[in-house]
């Protein structure tokens, strides 16, 4: 690259503003963390330090807002001199998707997470009262971690973070070698960078605008119970942190759950794998903390009601946050490489992520350990572990001692501070016992998901070369379905029990009523869903049991009151979700089973799946209870929509039903990603018809293909030319009147022929033209590109007075016709609305529970 001092057309001020904001946000978060630490541990000067801390956090927060705004301006104004805008956006990108550019890149994801922390921090700062200093200290520490991810500076050869404001010419100096840049001269390079790379088409979807922020708010919320737990340790208030942490945990569970289901809905609506959940590592990464947070919310409730389950509450609050960090490590360090469909690449931050992960695992142990001696031993052990882990020429297994020390320390240090009287009660006839067991079942569920998702981690640590199970989905389901079954049962009868002591006679009576009515409902549903599998029937019974048990409790014990029913409503929603998972999962069936092809393909084998069907244009094909016809396509922007008409067809009576609709699955033949296919789904109350295009012929290049065969024919009116692509009849030859239009105004005679061609699907006409101008002749050929035919009218053998006796000469060119078809897959999902409806009911339940807790605490305060 030549030395150029200034480049034309760059907008450097905004990037500088962004960079300064990044540095400021980092410095301010570090400052705030220290100041709040002083406020926590220096009781006499607490007021002063707290005031300083608030100022620090306000500066930090405003800096984060400024980073967000700067990056948005760069994307919105199409400043392609910045790598981020070049990489993730383009000129044609509509405003509503610009915000999605944020989460296509990693830096934007971290920024989003930081922004939520700032907003949560602002709320916590003014609402936590005596907890402010320690809670804000933990949040500021998390902000230190996140802001280093955006620093993008090099210290001693190691790059720390990745800055979103890096210039394209710094990130990719090789652009100056490009010929079209060299022509312009390096200083004018921007005139050559006209458009950005564009946003991944899969993210150009409105669910993708709201799903990531929701998910990240859930992630961000997981820090609050962690921060309260740490605050309890720092202030020596071992039990008091639970009550304020509970409301936030419920909030976190609700938001994260909503985010996960939104992701599932996005996958269902716009990905072509045909489902809402694929046990993909990235999906699992959001599920893992959620499962633990559900467990946590229950143990916190046990504690507030009975003063028990303190140890597990601590452990779950700590690991709820740690697992968010671990999930981030999995998805952002590039370690998943081989196993994920989502492509997340390494920005060289895995070391940094690991460092923070270990920091936040070690922090609770350090705070919980009592006495200087124990703390020193712990730090020494950590140092030894770290030294081994940093050992040169190492294998990854050297990390094991460090992992063992830091995890072991958490379990031990918390154990020694928790009063032994707070252990979970061992009375089987109490609600708290079963809630406790339920929380543990969630822990097991979480453990199994972590274990499998971490396969690449085990491969690295133990130097294995294991691949994921061949059928990942079936493998997960085999574990998680029985777990869900157990949970459904416990959700059903748990509410019938009472805290501390239950009247068992009454319980068994209610249990019997609930069980019998559940069995009745289940029987009806089994018939409705056509369930055959015994395990699925048991699973359905447990889900119905959960719904009936909670409805019964709500109506019978709570007398249908709304203000205390949050838990029951959330449980009913959860049960409905399980019903939806069973009905849509077990009854899901592919209706696009291909029956043709059997006779043609030499090695056609009966066992093979034939789940894709070829629909020739305008040729109706039976798919399940529908007759499907592909009848045309339209191209809007980069997408081609393939119109498929579905008509309900009763196979028994062989008659059409009144059910008729058109689905338009689209496909984008994207130069960057190949075929990007978006499904289209017809929603009914009882079922969905899901349809996507899995392959389309390349019509454009077939139209442009050169002609292969050429023949000359001498024919008269009414004669037929036989070609490979159909028969052409010369129906008419007339003198043309619009000479001018053809640019033949000087010609003496202009003749237009009409060729009628019977194609496979429709009849087409070609109109080649022949003109005489003195003794010169001109031919304007006419083409039927879809039929692969071109007609050139080249001569006439006699005088052009009596056409009926004249012989006309045509050159006919032939090539393979352009085929118009789509290959389609269609799936019916029965009763999937239970899943979406159940989710909404569950969210409402959580909202009710949260407002219940808020009302309770404000009443207590007033």
């Amino acid at each position, binding site marked *: 690259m030549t030395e150029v001092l200034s480049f034309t057309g760059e907008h450097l001020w905004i990037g500088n503003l962004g960079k300064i904001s990044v540095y400021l946000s980092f410095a301010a978060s570090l400052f705030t963390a220290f100041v709040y630490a002083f406020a926590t541990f220096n009781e006499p000067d607490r007021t002063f330090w707290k005031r300083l801390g608030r100022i620090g956090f306000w500066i930090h927060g405003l800096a984060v807002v400024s980073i967000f705004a700067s990056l948005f301006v760069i994307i919105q104004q199409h400043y392609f001199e910045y790598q981020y805008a070049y*990489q*993730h956006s383009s000129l044609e990108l509509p405003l509503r998707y610009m915000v999605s550019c944020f989460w*296509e890149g990693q830096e934007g994801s971290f920024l989003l997470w930081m922004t939520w922390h700032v907003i949560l921090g602002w709320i916590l700062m003014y609402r936590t009262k005596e907890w402010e200093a320690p809670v804000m200290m933990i949040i500021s520490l998390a902000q230190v971690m996140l802001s280093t991810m955006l620093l993008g500076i090099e210290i001693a050869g190691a790059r720390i973070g990745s800055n979103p404001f890096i210039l394209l010419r710094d990130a990719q100096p090789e652009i100056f070698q490009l010929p079209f840049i060299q022509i312009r001269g390096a200083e004018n390079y921007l005139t050559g960078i006209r458009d950005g*790379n*564009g946003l991944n088409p899969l993210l150009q979807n409105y669910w993708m605008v709201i799903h990531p922020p929701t998910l990240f708010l859930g992630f961000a919320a997981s820090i609050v119970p962690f921060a309260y737990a740490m605050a309890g340790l720092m202030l020596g208030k071992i039990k008091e942190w639970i009550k304020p942490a509970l409301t936030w945990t419920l909030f976190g569970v609700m938001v994260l759950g909503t985010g996960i289901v939104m992701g599932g809905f996005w996958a269902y609506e716009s990905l072509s*794998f*045909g*489902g809402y959940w694929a046990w993909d590592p990235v999906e699992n990464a959001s599920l893992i903390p959620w499962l633990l947070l559900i467990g946590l919310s229950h143990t916190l409730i046990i504690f507030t009601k009975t003063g028990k389950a303190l140890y597990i509450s601590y452990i779950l609050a700590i690991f709820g946050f740690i697992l968010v960090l671990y999930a981030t490590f999995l998805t952002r360090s590039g370690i998943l490489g*081989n196993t994920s*469909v989502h*492509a997340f*690449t390494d920005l060289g931050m895995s070391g940094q992520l690991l460092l923070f992960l270990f920091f936040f695992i070690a922090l609770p142990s350090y705070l919980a350990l009592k006495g200087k001696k124990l703390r020193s031993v712990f730090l020494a052990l950590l140092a030894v572990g770290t030294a081994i882990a940093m050992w040169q020429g190492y294998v990854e297994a050297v990390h094991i001692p460090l992992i063992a020390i830091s995890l072991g320390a958490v379990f031990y240090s918390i154990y020694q501070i928790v009063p032994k009287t707070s*252990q*979970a009660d*061992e009375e*089987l006839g109490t609600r708290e*016992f079963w809630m406790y*067991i339920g929380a*543990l079942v969630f822990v*097991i569920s979480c*453990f*199994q998901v972590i*274990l*499998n998702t971490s*396969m690449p981690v085990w491969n690295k640590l133990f130097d294995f*070369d*294991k*691949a*994921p*199970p*061949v*059928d990942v989905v079936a493998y997960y389901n085999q*574990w998680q379905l029985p777990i869900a079954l157990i949970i459904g049962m416990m959700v059903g009868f748990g509410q019938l029990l009472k805290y501390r002591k239950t009247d068992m006679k009454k319980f068994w009576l209610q249990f019997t009523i609930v069980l019998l009515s559940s069995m009745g409902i289940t029987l009806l549903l089994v018939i409705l869903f056509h369930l055959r599998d015994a395990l699925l029937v048991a699973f359905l019974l447990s889900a119905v049991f959960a719904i009936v048990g909670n409805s019964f409790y709500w109506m019978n014990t709570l007398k249908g009151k709304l203000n205390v029913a949050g838990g029951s409503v959330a449980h009913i929603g959860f049960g409905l979700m399980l019903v939806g998972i069973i009905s849509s999962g077990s009854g899901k069936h*592919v209706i696009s089973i*291909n029956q*043709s*092809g*059997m006779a*043609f*393909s030499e*090695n*056609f084998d009966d066992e*093979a*799946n*034939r*789940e*894709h*069907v*070829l629909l020739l244009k305008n040729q109706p094909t039976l798919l399940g209870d529908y007759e499907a016809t592909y009848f045309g396509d339209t191209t809007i922007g980069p997408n081609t929509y393939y119109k498929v008409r579905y008509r309900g067809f009763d196979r028994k009576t062989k008659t059409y039903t009144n059910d008729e609709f058109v689905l338009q699955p689209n496909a984008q033949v994207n*130069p*960057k*990603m*190949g*075929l990007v296919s978006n499904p289209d789904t017809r929603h009914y109350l009882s079922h969905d018809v899901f349809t996507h295009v*899995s*392959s389309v*012929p390349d019509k454009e290049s077939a139209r442009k293909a050169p002609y292969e065969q050429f023949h000359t024919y001498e024919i008269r009116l009414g004669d037929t030319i036989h070609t490979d692509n159909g028969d052409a009849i010369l129906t008419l030859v007339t003198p043309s009147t619009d000479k001018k239009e053809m640019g033949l105004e000087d010609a003496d005679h202009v003749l237009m022929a009409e060729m009628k061609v019977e194609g496979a699907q429709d009849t087409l006409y070609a109109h080649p033209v022949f003109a005489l101008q003195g003794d010169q002749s001109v031919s304007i050929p006419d083409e039927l590109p879809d039929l692969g035919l071109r007609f050139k009218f080249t001569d006439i053998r006699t005088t052009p007075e009596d056409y009926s006796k004249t012989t006309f000469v045509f050159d006919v060119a032939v090539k393979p016709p352009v085929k118009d*078809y789509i*290959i389609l897959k269609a*799936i019916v999902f029965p009763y999937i609305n239970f899943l979406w409806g159940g989710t909404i009911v569950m969210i409402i339940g959580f909202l009710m529970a949260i407002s219940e807790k808020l009302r309770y605490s404000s009443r207590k305060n007033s």
Partner: protein
Amino acid sequence: MKPRYIIIIVLIAVGIAAIISLYGNASQYVTFETAKATPGKEFHVIGQLVRDSSLKYNPEMDPNHLEFYLKDSTQEVRKVIFNSPKPADLERSEKVVIIGKMDGENFRASSILLKCPSKYNDGKLEESQYNASES
């Protein structure tokens, strides 16, 4: 025995069961030769698409039948049969992971993972997965 100890024992037992189950169910990255030694068992094979005219996909005859040749890390070339439409970016792929089993002299793939140069991630490889069936 107190319920607490029973709970702890059950927890540990289930945890160990999960670990053993994963170890037992994990597949392996192998070569065609190893896959052939245990016919009927499913493996992951990593290789490269053989780029000549041997790729066969004729949707009008059978939209669910794709054949191509794959060269594994030991340079052994085998025919791969995949009962699904041709992934649009197959020809662009730099690396192909096929999951399935040997069937006589051919490999029958139930899923294909493609690694293609990604335009959205700046030259890095991007993965996409294709499955032959839902079940």
